[in-house]
């Protein structure tokens, strides 16, 4: 691996704006707590190009789900509020849109699938009913045409005998089938962007493998961009082109997926990789990250990972660390230039 030099002037993604599907700029989200507001997403910026899959990886409380919910404008307000930033999709700032305008984009041009498909579906209506509704919300077609389309979609996501399954209620579907149905619903209006928030976390590994395969396939067929939220570096390695790593509300590193795994720039990324059981052979001791994630209500402006960092030196805990561009990558670490971190084995 060659030594990276800082290139302050060259933004790697200096592609024209019209080539960018989604651009999140300086997004900060806060939630009301007992004493004032707590910032759970802090100054997050990233962008997505056409047909690209960007992964956001982080542990619980890292702010990855809140980030994706903000893009859909699904943050409950109050207690939540978007304190700062822009979310530019197809040339317009989603945060400036009225609720009505946003509703036209949601489910049509941007779709989302969730970790628990059962809670996202209404138990009182059939799968077919809900798919037809989803389609007819955005497309002026007849019920019959919509039903036809719904059956096609179920077939597309690999649900056998789709016409009969349209008449089933959500509880008659297994977890894997439900997630397929959710994906069918998300694809209904041929979206430009699909946000997948931990779509396989609640599933068994063999079913997870099926769903990941499906997502990869439909992304290609529909030519959409995908924002893939996960806590699992294995899943990220499987499906993503680029990755952003979040820790305690901040993006600490973003990079091409191969480069990130080959040589992480941020010690937290390295720590996550080393902590994976697959990293360690046989019956050797696993390598945990010591300590626990900080309490967001009391984090300071300096490096939030410093207390758990094995590379921390005097000074790490004192200064504000900006997100810095290094070639085509970004990293939030004072020592990024001096560290040779360990990549995936």
């Amino acid at each position: 691996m060659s030594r990276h030099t800082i290139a302050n002037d060259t933004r790697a993604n200096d592609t024209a704006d019209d080539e960018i599907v989604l651009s999140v700029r300086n997004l900060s989200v806060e939630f009301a707590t007992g004493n004032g507001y707590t910032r759970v997403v802090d100054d997050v910026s990233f962008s997505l190009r056409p047909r690209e899959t960007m992964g956001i990886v982080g542990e619980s409380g890292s702010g990855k789900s809140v980030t994706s919910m903000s893009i859909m404008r699904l943050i409950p307000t109050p207690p939540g509020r978007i304190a700062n930033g822009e979310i530019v999709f197809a040339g317009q700032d989603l945060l400036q849109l009225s609720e009505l305008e946003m509703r036209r984009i949601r489910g049509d041009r941007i779709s989302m699938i969730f970790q628990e498909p059962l809670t996202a579906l209404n138990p009182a209506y059939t799968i077919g009913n809900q798919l037809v509704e989803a389609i007819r919300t955005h497309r002026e077609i007849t019920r019959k045409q919509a039903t036809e389309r719904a059956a096609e979609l179920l077939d597309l996501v690999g649900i056998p005998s789709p016409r009969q399954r349209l008449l089933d209620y959500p509880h008659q579907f297994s977890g894997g089938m439900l997630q397929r149905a959710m994906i069918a619903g998300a694809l209904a209006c041929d979206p430009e962007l699909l946000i997948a928030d931990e779509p396989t976390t609640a599933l068994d590994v063999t079913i997870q493998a099926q769903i990941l395969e499906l997502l990869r396939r439909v992304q290609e067929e529909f030519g959409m961009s995908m924002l893939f939220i996960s806590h699992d570096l294995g899943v990220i390695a499987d499906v993503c082109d680029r990755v952003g790593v979040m820790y305690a509300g901040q993006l600490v590193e973003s990079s091409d997926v191969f480069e990130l795994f080959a040589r992480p720039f941020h010690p937290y990324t390295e720590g996550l990789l080393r902590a994976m059981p697959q990293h360690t052979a046989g019956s050797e001791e696993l390598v945990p990250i010591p300590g626990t994630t900080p309490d967001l209500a009391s984090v300071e402006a300096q490096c939030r990972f410093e207390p758990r960092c094995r590379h921390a030196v005097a000074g790490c805990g004192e200064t504000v660390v900006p997100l810095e561009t290094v070639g085509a990558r970004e990293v939030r670490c004072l020592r990024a230039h001096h560290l040779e971190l360990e990549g995936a084995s």
Partner: protein
Amino acid sequence: MTEPTSDTLLEVSGLTKHFPVRGGVLQRTKARVRAVDGLDFTVRRGETLGLVGESGSGKSTTGRLVLRLIEPTAGRVVFDGVDVLKLGRGAMRDMRSRMQMIFQDPYSSLDPQATVADSIGEPLSVHEGLRGAKRDGRVVELLERVGLKPQHLHRYPYEFSGGQRQRICIARALALKPDLLVCDEPVSALDVSIQAQVINLLKSIQRDTGISLLFISHDLSVVRHVSDRIAVMYLGRIVEIGDSEQIYTQPRHPYTETLLSAIPVPNPVTQRRRERILLRGEPPSPLDPPSGCRFHTRCQYAMDVCAVEEPVLAPAGRGSSACHLHDYGPGLGGGTVLDLEPTHRPVPA
């Protein structure tokens, strides 16, 4: 099956649990969920047996049956020479001090209204009648053993993170110095970085005390790290049991091979080069498991015999596997399924 020796702590044979499904006005039994269907395995002293399977495999039920938290439909559980299922109320209570459990969800496994001292002290007051300062003294020792601090003694569960709660649960389970610890998905609810902390803690405790672990998990890559041997379950049965490294690197059963291939490797280069086995369809219902080999409906190597005759666990390598591939068809004869040439892979029906 290994013969019980003096080295054997737990011997389970023919363990079966069928849950009745009731319905209708009279609450009659309409059907039976065959959650666990005839398990045989042993756990040696100081050993960790990993129990792996997906949801519906019966692995969690197995853990509860071993501890007699639910009564089996049939079978025997012999713990240190004593038939646990024949014990009366009092003797069973005494026996409980020797076999303990930790649970998946560290949030619901601690009483929100009880302090750490009350929770960890519960086994001490129930079995040793300890109270007050004496009890708290022991609790402090346990807290320190699991990496918490004495000043945590009078705090409530909501003040702790998931990983810390799981440490509290481990301390509670260790209070009576049991011989067997059943761990039911103990790290599944935890973040990766914390997962490794808890696993290392369990292993260091095992090194110090020689405790045996029955480690239940859906995650084969985690299980590999803690287990000496692994049993793989599918729909209430053990399909393969054997040496941990062997299961991980040279599986003898197609289902084990599938499970392994499904775990994504955190390295895009290797992950995208791997050959993946995508299982067909969904797992069958344990209400009505398939005839013959229960895996035959989804198995890429399924042969005619598989639908008819149920395979039995037979020795294969350093372990046993219940699969017809070893005697019929390609005749693996105990070798790993990874050796099967693609030509041997019959076209899926």
